[in-house]
């Protein structure tokens, strides 16, 4: 089986570059600090979480039975932040994808345009912001703990797979969004539901054993948990586990790509 979406990446590299750069710049257009905000925002967020959760709420990370009573002030904040970084990438893709084809009607109707580029720019821009935030997180953690483990490299494999999951989802939602306009209305609630369904505000251990299979089915939950394990606990997943995960993501992504390409020819009639 040929992996067609990778071929499309190679072929449209230049367009992807232009569109992704635009997508990232768009967010900070007209601001004085420009793309510095990509760095400033996560630092502010992390400071606020530390202040509110650790100093005011005096919240401790972990379940009632298992938490470490001597954990530092930063622990709750960085765990929450790690969850939010991963989740925000998902939220950005879900919010933007369903209406993206509609918004670029000119490209659909008037020129031959590789429509997959639109999904790629959404997922890539989300990944970009995620990486910047993750770098802030890793640096803060390294300073806090006074060391950095080479195992941190595993995160690139984990997020590489996650990128493909998000990319597939963007393609899927943008295809469905053309035919069923209601999709873009429901995404707002869906994002909210997913925020509480995923272990963003709590560790996976806090979920009752009977319901734990739910978090395993949820790909965001898996990525959040593994990200925390790699950065904070220095417990990277095994290579085999990662390989299975990456291959699964790749298949999902390819299926969504083929769905998009199969339906693409109908877009011009509907929009």
């Amino acid at each position: 089986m040929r992996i067609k979406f990778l071929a499309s990446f190679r072929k449209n590299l230049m367009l992807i570059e232009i569109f992704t750069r635009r997508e990232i710049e768009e967010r900070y257009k007209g601001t004085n600090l420009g793309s510095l905000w990509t760095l400033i925002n996560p630092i502010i967020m992390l400071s606020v979480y530390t202040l509110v959760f650790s100093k005011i709420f005096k919240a401790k990370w972990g379940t009632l039975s298992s938490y470490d009573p001597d954990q530092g002030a930063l622990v709750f904040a960085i765990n929450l932040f790690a969850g939010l970084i991963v989740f925000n990438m998902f939220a950005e893709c879900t919010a933007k994808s369903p209406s993206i084809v509609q918004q670029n009607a000119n490209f659909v109707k008037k020129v031959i345009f590789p429509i997959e580029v639109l999904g790629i720019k959404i997922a890539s821009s989300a990944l970009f912001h995620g990486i910047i935030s993750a770098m802030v997180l890793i640096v803060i953690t390294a300073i806090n703990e006074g060391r950095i483990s080479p195992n941190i490299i595993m995160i690139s494999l984990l997020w590489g797979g996650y990128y493909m999951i998000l990319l597939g989802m963007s393609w899927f939602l943008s295809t469905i969004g053309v035919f069923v306009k209601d999709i873009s209305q429901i995404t707002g609630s869906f994002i909210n539901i997913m925020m509480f369904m995923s272990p963003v505000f709590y560790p996976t251990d806090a979920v009752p054993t009977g319901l734990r299979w739910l978090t395993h089915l949820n790909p965001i939950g898996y990525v959040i948990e593994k990200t925390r394990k790699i950065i904070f606990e220095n417990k990277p997943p095994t290579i085999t586990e990662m390989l299975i995960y990456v291959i699964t993501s790749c298949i999902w992504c390819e299926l969504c790509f083929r769905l998009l390409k199969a339906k693409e020819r109908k877009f011009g009639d509907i929009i």
Partner: protein
Amino acid sequence: MKKNCREHDIAIRASNLSKHYTIRERKRERLKRLVLNKKAEKILRVSALNKVSFEISNGDALGIIGKNGSGKSTLLQIICGTISATSGELEVNGRIAALLELGSGFNPEFTGRENIEINAILLGMKKKEVKFKIKDIIEFADIGIYIDQPVRTYSSGMIVRLAFAIIAHSDPDIMIIDEALAVGDSYFTQKCMRFIQRFKKKGTLVFVSHDPNAVLSVCNKAILLENGEIKYNGTAKDALEIYANQERIKQSENVEEVKDVRMKQVDEEGKRQTKKEEYVRKWKDYRTEIINTSKYKNEIELITHDNREIESEDYGGEEACIISTRLENLEKRQDDINIVLGGELVKLNIEFIARKRIESLIVGFILKDDKGLTILGDNSFNSLISDEEYSASQGELIRAEFIFTMPLLRAGHYSITSSIAEGNMNNHNILHWQNDSMMLESQCTSIAAGMAGLPMQSISITRPRRK
């Protein structure tokens, strides 16, 4: 041999292309029906194209004409591949560049420069090629500082300039132009028309326009579409005639009205027959006086400007250089000097400097309309009855004067192209060719039909007595 074969190659072949749209019931109705478990009502099918078959050979210029809604744009979109046909087959050989309606493939939020990059890549240019050509494209579009502004701030004219500039530089095999150039100003339209004429020499063109003159000046073949079907497929001239005839039937009421006015003028003019002889000598329309005091007066405004500022396209100019092209009216009116009237005697002066010695020089001019169609033209060689040849020494200022009766022109923009050549009619070298040396604008006109009016010596209606 090989070249011969290529000439017969097919650029586009369409067989039995059809496009149907189904107009579905409204979503809410559908939900209601599903809930109440009712049967579906009849689904409406609209056929935008119905079994359309044609072929375009390499190097042909095909016009597609027809009323709004006759399926022209649908056909073009199918050829470009942006929508797919419901049934039928389409074969396209070569790289297509299309200008479909306004702002083809532009993202309104992106700047002009970014849109150039995107569209150039979509048209198949490589990264290096884009970098290399972007300067030329920007220069051709000529929209100044707007190039770095978002496209949503552009006027429709600027959008077309940009869109045309891109496809013009993409070096396509097949160029498709949908009614779009109409929004550009006359300079730009002229520039595009010249480009299209040049392109025709090497590529295949598909051209859609509501303007019969534009189609006629560009295309050799044409298809007339009516309600999604081909009504005529043949030469551009015949297709336009059929189209014009069917339109004329509808407009016949309007025509009657105009005729009434004309008849009246003829009646009044009948009383002035005594002056006829003079008119014959001066080759004047016998209605000139009355027309020139009426609203039908054919005022032609001369748009004057500094020669260096106009964006005229030249070639040559090294050995002889045109420095001015002026038109003046010879009838002593006290009016604005920038106005000449159709039917008046005018003088066209073309001045140039010879940069080297020129043996047997020829000075010529062409009057073109805004589609680039030549209305008239003449040169100094044609008028030489004797064997005498004119020559110029190096550095000499030479002036050529053409005195002629200005034809009545249809409302619109016109331009005069002037040229200097050396040699004779059969064998000559163009030393300087200056497009758009001068622009004219004709406001309104009394001509009944055609591109230009001739002075009528007399029109009369009589009742021959039967014996």
